[in-house]
């Protein structure tokens, strides 16, 4: 690394001041740009979304009010995302640990590479794969769940005959979020100072104890950040859900295996946008605003948890 050996001459000190000033200003201006961008988007959303309050029930999919519509959609969005995160959390931690700590290098590298690639698969392709491969494969599982766990409100049935339910959509969402979450997790795990790990091992810790004592606490904030990014993708995902989910209109349904699925906001926008009249567009943008707020609340909570629980190594 760079090391300055001698006392710098005077003009270099001046240069350094200018350098510092320029650099910090540039950084500050960039940060302020974020505010400008966001203000633009927010103003735009509000102007275009507020006329939605004038909408009549037949522009609201027969829901009584705008709030009832948005509420039902929020329910579906959260439901699908919860399913996705229930799957993503254990899998991404496992996958991240395998790549960073368990697998030998010659396996870990190609696997990490493969996972990165999957982040680029367009959601349309995830949707196609979901319809062609995943839904038929998961359909028997739907029937099994209804037969054996039917006493739970989630598996009330009747099971969908095509498997294109919010459960399948959740699995697709999980797979879409998985590459992003895993890629960050593994970087975070790999950042654990080597000295900590070796100290733990030298003290006779097993591998799991070493991970529990050094890797996980050190990476906690990063892990939460990774999961949040994944959740962000799951919440806002449009095309894959619109294609995989067999949802019509807007209903609130706890049942995750029936074909009468709850719909998600993003898919609702995608499905309705094409043929929308001006007021309907406002309704859709208003729904977008609701999604925006939901994602924000989730992010904010997550950020708060992350900063509260940081353990500095």
């Amino acid at each position, binding site marked *: 690394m*760079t090391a*300055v050996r001698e006392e710098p001459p005077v003009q270099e000190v001046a240069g350094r001041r200018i350098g*510092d000033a*320029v*650099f910090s200003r540039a*950084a500050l201006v*960039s*940060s302020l*740009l*974020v505010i400008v961008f*966001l203000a*633009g*988007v927010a103003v*735009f959303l509000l102007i*275009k979304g507020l006329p939605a309050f004038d909408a009549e029930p037949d522009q609201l999919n027969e829901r009584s009010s705008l709030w009832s519509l948005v509420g039902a959609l929020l329910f579906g969005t959260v439901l699908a995302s919860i399913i996705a995160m229930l799957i993503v959390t254990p899998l*991404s*931690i*496992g996958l991240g640990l*395998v790549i960073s700590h*368990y697998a030998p290098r010659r396996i870990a590298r190609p696997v990490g*590479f493969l*996972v*990165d*690639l*999957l982040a*680029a*698969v*367009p959601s*349309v*392709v995830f949707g196609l*794969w979901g319809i062609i491969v995943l839904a038929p494969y998961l359909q028997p599982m739907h029937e099994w769940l209804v037969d054996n766990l039917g006493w739970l409100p989630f598996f009330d049935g009747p099971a969908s005959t095509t498997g294109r339910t919010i459960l399948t959509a959740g699995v697709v969402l999980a797979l879409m979020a998985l590459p*992003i979450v895993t890629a*960050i997790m593994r*970087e975070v795990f790999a*950042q654990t*100072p*080597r000295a900590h790990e070796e100290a733990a*091992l*030298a*003290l*006779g*810790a097993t*591998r799991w*104890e070493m991970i529990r004592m050094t890797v996980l606490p050190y990476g906690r*904030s*990063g892990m939460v*950040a990774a999961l949040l*990014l994944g959740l962000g*993708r799951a919440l*806002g995902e449009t095309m894959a859900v619109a294609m995989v989910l067999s949802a019509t209109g807007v209903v609130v349904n706890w049942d995750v295996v029936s074909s009468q699925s709850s719909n998600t906001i993003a898919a609702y*926008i995608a499905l309705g*946008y094409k043929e929308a009249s001006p007021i309907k567009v406002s309704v859709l943008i208003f729904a977008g605003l609701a*999604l*925006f707020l*939901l*994602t*924000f609340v*989730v*992010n904010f909570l997550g950020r708060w948890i992350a900063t509260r629980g940081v*353990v500095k190594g």
Partner: protein
Amino acid sequence: MTSTPPAEPGGRATDTIDPFSTGPLPPDPTAPAGRLPRLAALLTGVVALAAGGLLGVILGWGVAPVVAVAWVVFVVAFPLWSLLVENRRKAVDRLVTTLVWTAFVLAMIPLVSLMVTVVAKGAPAISGNFLTADMSGRALLDGSGGIFHALVGTLLVTVIAAVIAVPVGVLTAVWLVEYGKGTRLAGVITFLVDVMTGIPSIVAGLFAFAFFQVVLAEPLPRLAVGGGVALSLLMLPTVIRAVEEMLKLVPEDLREASYALGVPKWRTIVKVVLPTAVAGIVTGVTLAVARVAGETAPLLLIVGTAYQTNWNPFDGGTATLPTFIFGSLSKTSHFKYGDAWSDAIWGAALVLIVIVMTLNVVARVIGSVFAPKTGK
């Protein structure tokens, strides 16, 4: 699979000191000093599979339940064996190792399935013509052309997005971590970055559309730069977050060592902090690029559709791979040419993945060139 880490002295570590106060290591004075044979995992696996298979044959199951039963047997039997022969701590370690690898396998099955589907369906479509021709003229009807126009469009739009988002994102993260730390403004910006993560992609498209409508005074702006702006909005929070997390993980000692040598702050950041975190930053940026390269909805609004190659990012619509895929989807059930379009879709998906793969490799090479040589 269960190669043990080095420097692990069997079960004799009874009096360890816990340096991180996250829970004491339980001393286990009664631990037998035994050790499982090297092939224990394999052995248990075979036995478990045999048990599952036997049940399967008797009850006439398919493959999935057999594997499930075998897995349950393995998860119970393997740590149990370890508990009997070794000690409790090693048994827990074996259990966790099994679970971690299970998560790995569970995650890889669908991902590999998806990859295989894309490659198997996409590879036959790839040909010289497919990569160098566009879909103008008769090809628009029968899908016999290629995706060169979409390829050019994707490159233009993604590069523009990256050119906007990466410098702004990296500088913002630098400011947040190195300059603004603890200030009120930093709090506000961190907050706003969080807000930005939630922008639905279609909203970014609507925003870019409205923006260029005003700037260009055209009722229907169609330009690749607009697509770049929309995508950069989506990239920015991902880039900032990723870079921020990586910068935070750079040990404070490095910075202090650099300052102590009289290196100015900006040079410390450029020469010490950023290079240390470069691998993570490159991953973050690549992921962000990968994420937006597959984005469809905002591009439909601002770059529109085109059947010819358009190299000019400032004027005229252009096709991109995702919008091409999305647009061609409606043609896959065409009574005459459906199959040709279906092939084109999978081919385009494969090409998109290959592009991102190339980007990934390039980024990694760049990253490793600039990264400081450390023990890792």
